[in-house]
């Protein structure tokens, strides 16, 4: 099972996206766990993630996080997909990066 963790500044707007992604994953039968957290809890929540997705509003943290977790996949969510809460699109790009 893959663990996908989304981060934004407070974990509020990403949690909406998580709901949409979960629905798509369920429909597709993709075995994964998706969570949303605030960036402040990165050090507690990131270690057991397979892929870290960042909300576009905090995208400037990408480099730092990549350096912090070099073994993990890190991706900034596309702005339009994020704004349109496109769960399918985001899940697909995450899967692609994970190689699934």
């Amino acid at each position, binding site marked *: 099972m893959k663990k996908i963790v989304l981060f*934004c*500044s*407070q974990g*509020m*707007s990403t949690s*909406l996206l998580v709901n949409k992604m979960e629905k798509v994953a369920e429909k597709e039968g993709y075995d994964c766990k998706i969570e949303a957290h*605030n960036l*402040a809890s990165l*050090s507690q929540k990131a270690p057991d993630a397979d892929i870290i997705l960042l*909300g*576009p*509003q*905090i*995208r*400037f*943290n990408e*480099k*730092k996080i990549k350096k912090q977790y070099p073994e993990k996949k890190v991706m900034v969510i596309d*702005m*339009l997909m*994020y*704004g*349109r*809460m496109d769960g399918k699109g985001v899940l697909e790009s995450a899967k692609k990066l994970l190689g699934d």
Partner: protein
Amino acid sequence: MKEKFMNGMLAVATTMNGQRHLAAIRNSFMNLLPIIIIGSFCTLFTNVVTSTKEGFMSIANIPGMGFLENIQPMFTAANYATMNFLAIGIVILLANELGESYGIKDKGLPLIALGAYISLCATTIVITSSGSGEAITVSNILSSSYTNAQGLFVGMFSAIAATEIYCRLVKSKKLAINMPDSVPANVARSFEILFPAAITILAISGIGMVFEMIVGMSLFDAIAKFVQAPLSNVLTGLPGFMFFVFMTTLLWIFGIHGTQTLKAVSEPILIAALAQNEAAYAAGQAIPNIISRPFLNNYAIVTGAGVTGGLLIAIFLFSKRKDYRTIGKLAIPCGIFNINEPLIFGLPIVLNPLLAIPFMLTPVITSAFAYFMTSIGFAGRLVVNAPWTTPLGIQAFLASGGSIGAVVTQILVVLISAAIYTPFILAANRQAENDEVEEVA
């Protein structure tokens, strides 16, 4: 050119967000917030439920409900226990956060920082006897002005200084006392920490002592007077606040969380102002500040940064664009809880010159409007910090301790916002039409 500017803005935001101390301050205030919310809600309960003071619109003043007064001590005590210890809280949280960023997770570090901070506080106070007018020195007492929001700035400075000193000393290993291998590891560790801890506390206490010897004024008073007071005057004044709000939306235009990014600067000041208001409200005195933390939540970022509730109204009344209406529908449930990322990234507002103008203009204008409505006494001054996700109307009602004028003002703020966004939505209609014509051609 656009690309270059965009990269420049990103660089600024990255620096501000990534900067160790600013990030630690921001996270500490985020963790302090629940305490502030609990504290201010206790005051709200006291005043609207249990108070039997004459003239209060409280439930206990309704005939037959007077028994509610009996549970008041519970709220008063909880309020005292939270609102009066914000400085202590920030010292502990900040030392912990900053230490962690250096990879130092010593559980004792927050207490060392606290010791350093308290060493800068006066523990004797001079009071004047109300009867004889005689000055009496009371020793062995820590005034609440050192533990509550008035101490936030000095608290932040000493927590940062203490953590910096301590982490460097611990990392340098020069001070560590080498124990033979036969000594249990934990015993050796306790000694390892002892010297850095002692040096840290003595260094800060020493700086405080030398400062007072030379300047003749305590370091605490000097920071409060020459740093905290001027900064607070600027940000709690209307022009300074309008500039601050403008900067937050400017950052959002580049897709950066503006309010969050500038929190390290705004939070200590706006929370100290709120604490003053809240204390006055609890004591039944005149409320000192118009602008404080809840003013931002209530009038400048209500329905989301840029007061986009008005944008939603404008879209549903006037937009002919299918894409706008689709995003709009998606954005309503978020907007109710003052979240608007769907609009910001979906329409998008980010890097969209047409919508950027009203987005930056609206909160500045609504802040000025709300300031005016509050200063003429129509809207009650804000005394309670409701969570920022509290919906429109309810938020103002709670924050003002039940002022209907504040509720009306908050609704007007959203209507003003709708009026400002409308011409731009009409222009977006025309823009879409032109695009279609071009596509056909």
